[in-house]
């Protein structure tokens, strides 16, 4: 039965249900228990934002705090996965990938290929991403394009509590390494989520809104911004179709291409910086595969090519907005062939 819970609770519930179902699922990372051997162990923290609260006492020996040593414990996740566990390691902020990337992209991602198909590495790295809470340049980035670029990894970016639960359960059950991106601004957002466990398949986009004039592909927090823009544009007679790919690797290209075949116009919204990001990747794929269907050039709405700034005024100017998305849609709708009535 569905009830309204937060994105954060949905993630906690997915972890708890999978730990309940499968004794090989283990959770570790900095502060995920949040007080092992500390005076307040009985009320362990459950992560800096409490996302893993309650798991430590419920699953003794399977929820472990780590030293602040991302290389060691992310590598341990790879070793544990290759030897029979399903570890869910938490990289508190994705910005910390810089200190442990080798263990992800040279080790976990490549075991299966390098070893001739003889290994599987069923691990998940949960990680917080995104701008919006004044966390400044080293705690706010949208680094999923880097992981999407790496063969052997899968990348999921839930936009809603429903997707968060279903994609995390799918990630844990997946036999390949998955980088699971949790947008920090979305943690408190609420939505309908079934109580029972369910897995959402990777590589299947969610058509968030159907429409015939312009295809808007949006990811993560940008999905709700695109919805806001679409509402405003509907009043102007522009009917947007919003597609949330939900996973960038694998990417559901078919759903995007089918939509563009119908609309002939594409706007891709990406909170990442513009070069070599998902926006440029999706725009390029569409340009190559659906050139004949396009009535106007694809447009990208992204953050600028800068680090994420701290000052609230600057950060707000950095992140794409419903207004900037609407402006791009108007531009593409008004260019090329005549806009639809």
């Amino acid at each position: 039965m569905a009830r309204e819970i937060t994105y954060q609770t949905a993630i906690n519930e997915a972890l708890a249900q999978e730990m309940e179902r499968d004794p090989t699922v283990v959770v570790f990372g900095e502060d995920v228990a949040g007080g092992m051997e500390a005076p307040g162990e009985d009320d362990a923290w459950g992560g800096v934002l409490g996302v893993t609260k309650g798991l430590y006492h419920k699953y003794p020996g399977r929820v472990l705090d780590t030293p602040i040593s991302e290389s060691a414990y992310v590598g341990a996740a790879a070793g544990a996965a290759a030897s029979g566990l399903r570890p869910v390691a938490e990289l508190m902020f994705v910005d910390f990938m810089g200190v442990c990337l080798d263990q992800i992209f040279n080790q976990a991602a490549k075991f299966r290929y390098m070893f001739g198909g003889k290994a599987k590495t069923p691990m998940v790295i949960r990680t917080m991403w995104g701008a919006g809470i004044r966390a400044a340049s080293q705690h706010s980035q949208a680094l999923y394009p880097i992981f999407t670029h790496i063969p052997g990894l899968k990348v999921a970016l839930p936009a809603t509590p429903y997707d968060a639960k279903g994609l995390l359960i799918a990630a844990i059950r997946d036999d390949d390494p998955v980088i699971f991106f949790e947008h920090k601004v979305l943690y408190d957002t609420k939505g309908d989520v079934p109580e029972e466990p369910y897995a959402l398949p990777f590589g299947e986009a969610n058509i968030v809104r159907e429409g015939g004039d312009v295809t808007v592909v949006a990811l993560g927090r940008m999905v709700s911004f695109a919805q806001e823009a679409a509402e405003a544009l509907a009043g102007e007679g522009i009917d947007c179709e919003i597609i949330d790919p939900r996973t960038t690797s694998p990417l559901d290209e078919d759903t995007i291409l089918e939509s563009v075949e119908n609309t002939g116009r594409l706007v891709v919204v990406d909170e990442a910086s513009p070069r070599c990001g998902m926006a440029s990747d999706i725009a390029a794929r569409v340009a190559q595969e659906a050139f004949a269907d396009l009535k106007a050039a694809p447009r990208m709405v992204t953050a600028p090519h800068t680090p994420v700034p701290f000052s609230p005024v600057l950060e707000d100017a950095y992140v794409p907005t419903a207004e900037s998305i609407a402006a791009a849609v108007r531009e593409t709708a008004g260019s090329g062939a005549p806009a639809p009535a």
Partner: protein
Amino acid sequence: MSTVAPPEAGQLTRDQLLEAYRVMRTIREFEERLHTEFATGEIPGFVHLYAGEEAIAAGVCAHLRSDDYVASTHRGHGHAIAKGCDVKAMMAEIYGRHTGLCHGKGGSMHIADLEKGMLGANGIVGGGPPLVCGVGLTARVKQTDQVAVSFTGDGGSNQGTFLESLNLAACWNLPCVFVIEDNGYAESTPPAFHQAGVDVAKRADGFGLPGVEVDGFDFFAVSEAAGEAVRRARSGAGASLLVCKVMRYYGHFEGDQQTYRGPVEVEELRAKRDCLDAFARRVTEAGVLEESDLTEIDAAARALLDEAVEEAKAGPDPSTDEVLSDVYVKY
């Protein structure tokens, strides 16, 4: 840190001694043969030879079961052989053949066989220690008494991954053994330059772990210390550090001109320190094995390598379709 006095050769059974010699001789034969074959230009890519260091792989792996794991280095052939990987399939892998242990997808630097507990040679210096922490965690969570061993070079002893892993293994009380093979050079740079502070074995003290240094040319010394570390891990008492001092016989990679080495360094090592010679002397002088026991193994190793090279050369290449296979279990 303590030093370990080599036990008497007679403390091991005849079968254990024969097996130890077989492993060391097979590794030596494999590496000497690769050195020769590489010079013909038929072997693609990078090859890093383990010759000279055989006593370490043999001495450590003598205490491991097939369900224990090792994580290796770019100089990984010796560890793979000692852990029981198929020698012919290894050679075919190094030639890039479909018949290779990894179907030609890995090569010398990524030889692996998880069924044998060989978690892979590793192209990244310091790549292995975190992985064995994970294997140790698997053993802990599944309540098995498996042990995980990482081999790392003297160069790797300076990687953050190594030091972080000692700490993590201590914090989580993991059944791990961290072996440092100090073979005289991190590529071309000697430990006298690249390792500051105390002897590496003493670095274990900082994490509350036992650290032991042994002569890496001496199978008996390695085996004694490794046996203790593996027993400690298997019993649940935690991780250990074992530093083996040795020198490699060849360059960092095949083709390395080794201008950084002394003029007669390797000749002297081969003449005075060789692990196989020392082993043979010990066991024959103690009267536990006969000269003929050893020459029989020598001949068998040579024959095995003759066949391995011949089959590897004649082996089929992978089909080009295989570029795309085994990236994911399912995508």
